[in-house]
């Protein structure tokens, strides 16, 4: 079966075949013989033909897979080629400059006004969560075209704080 993996901005063609015991998998140009077994709800025992053994933690959210290794975590989106086309179109029409709260917390200070021009890295809002003040910075330069919060307000994770329009 063929898939497209999206990882770190790249699209990698994938093929998976089931063998009598284990799998044959192509990742880009490389073929692997893989044995994969469940070790409880999250842990997976992964083994290559030469005996190389990895303990992986797997979590799936829709088509996004999070695979944790001992010293790193890999996020990869696995889709069939058809779904991928739809996604690409969505990305192009996407919300772009919406700055969201990545955690619930309290707005301590709003550092920009509607109409301000900001550079990449400029402070926008200070959010207090878990006893720390966290400055939320502009991910790109642009014009602040909307401010959705004010000081003292508490926000939920994912709440839109500020919107920046590209210059």
């Amino acid at each position, binding site marked *: 079966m063929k898939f497209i993996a999206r990882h770190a901005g790249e699209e990698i063609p994938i093929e*998976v075949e089931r063998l009598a015991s284990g*799998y044959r998998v192509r990742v880009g140009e490389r073929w692997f013989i893989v044995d994969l077994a469940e070790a409880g709800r999250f842990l997976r025992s992964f083994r290559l033909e030469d005996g190389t053994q990895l303990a*992986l933690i797997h979590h799936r959210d829709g088509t996004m897979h999070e695979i944790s290794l001992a010293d790193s975590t890999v996020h990869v989106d696995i889709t069939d080629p058809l779904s991928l086309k739809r996604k690409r179109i969505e990305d192009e029409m996407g919300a772009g400059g919406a700055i969201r709260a990545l955690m*619930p917390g309290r707005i301590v200070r709003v550092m920009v006004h509607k109409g301000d021009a900001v550079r990449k890295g400029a402070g926008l809002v200070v959010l207090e969560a878990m006893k720390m003040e966290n400055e939320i910075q502009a991910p790109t330069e642009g014009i602040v075209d909307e401010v959705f919060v004010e000081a003292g307000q508490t926000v939920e994770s994912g709440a839109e704080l500020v919107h920046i329009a590209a210059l």
Partner: protein
Amino acid sequence: MKVLIANRGEIAVRVIRACRELGYSTVAVYSEPDRAALHVLYADQAMPIGPAPSRESYLRIDRIIDAAKKAGADAIHPGYGFLAENASFARACIDEGLIFVGPSAESIDAMGSKTESRQRMQAAGVPVVPGLTEPVRSFDEIAAFARNVGLPIMIKASAGGGGKGLRFVEREDDLHPAFERVTSEAQSFFGDSAVYAEKFIASPRHIEVQVLGDQHGNLLHIGERECTLQRRHQKVVEECPSPIVDEALRQKLGDMAVRAAKAVNYYSTGTIECLMGPDRQFYFLEMNTRLQVEHPVTEMVWGIDLVKEQLRVARGEKLALGDIKPSGHAIECRIYAEDPSRNFAPSPGLIRYMNLPQGPGVRNDNGVYSGYIVPVFYDPMLSKLICHAPTRADAIARMRRALIEYRVEGIETTIPFFTALMSHPDFAAAKFDTGFLDRNLAELTKERSGNGSVDAAIAAAAILAFEESQQVRLPENGDSPWKHAGRAEALKDRL
């Protein structure tokens, strides 16, 4: 004896463990979201003290004293943070006939004000860093001090501690914004906007000395800890002993610490924090009149239990440690619910799964469990991982091994950051100062990808997606392969 623990998280669990081993019963207190927190689960009794915000629960002296009386507690242990260094709380306990497991209110007062403590230390012949003699509220006074001693300086919340509410200022332009930020944090965290400034020692190390005293005038030091590795002035890794302190310097530091503590008639556990320059000159910074977060590294090396000693001293017993000697080396990593790859942004939420490090020389002082929801309201510490081994190199290797075993799924943690730090050559060589982490942060937090492990992860994800599309379950240990079963059950990762 029945002990109420006026705290939450790992330190409340730590104190419950000590009480249980001494045969004392324990009373937990909890805010609304902490109803099923680990410290509540491990206690013999649990008393509600209010809603989520600390100032309406864990900082409410009246409610905590009331809970203690309702539960029939004899003593209150404050842990660290919250009310641990609040002299009014210590007095309120005594007034209500409860034992306060800590020093006297007078000692807390004397050391609680950065300015008063400096004066008393100078009088006792303890070296201090040049700084303001009084807390101030106006920017002009800070500006004048900066002109006087020259930049860099530190601005700190006068009532602060534990690395909260302080800023380092190197450039004139940053002076005013820093003053504003510290004033704001001082007001919101400590209820007092007064600030204080001192000269900044270049390339310093942060060394601290553990002291322990009883109510009969006996007081001794129990070696030093190396706490130089800090991020935004918060300690993140601590060691015992310090790799740069030899026996002669240990004796000098210990004598200074005992002199400092005796100057305020100290008893219980306490810590004298010092800055040490590259010339090994040390300066008194402050005294923490409580148990320290990093107390386990001292415990493992010196073979003692500081919490049990606190409890014994609080009951009026005399110190009876015998002839204790340090042995080996211990390192502590503070495991936080923070995402190192996103500038250590807090990462609260549901812990879906945890694999804990176990085996020789590993101690995990935990405050959470698999299935726990890390709340957004409090400190993000999940646990303290401490490793002990005969030498510093062995302890680092053991910590690296333990970090590989320690896996958390559902929230992000600082584990990958510590894994990178334990492999850094400058850490191995103990070549660092208090600015080391902030200078090397990019290198320590960059995404790592072992030999081909990204490809392996992608292959695993692809197989799991494939199996899902085929409605087939993975072979489980002992199952014959390709057993067909309810797919949705087997692969959907939800609780």
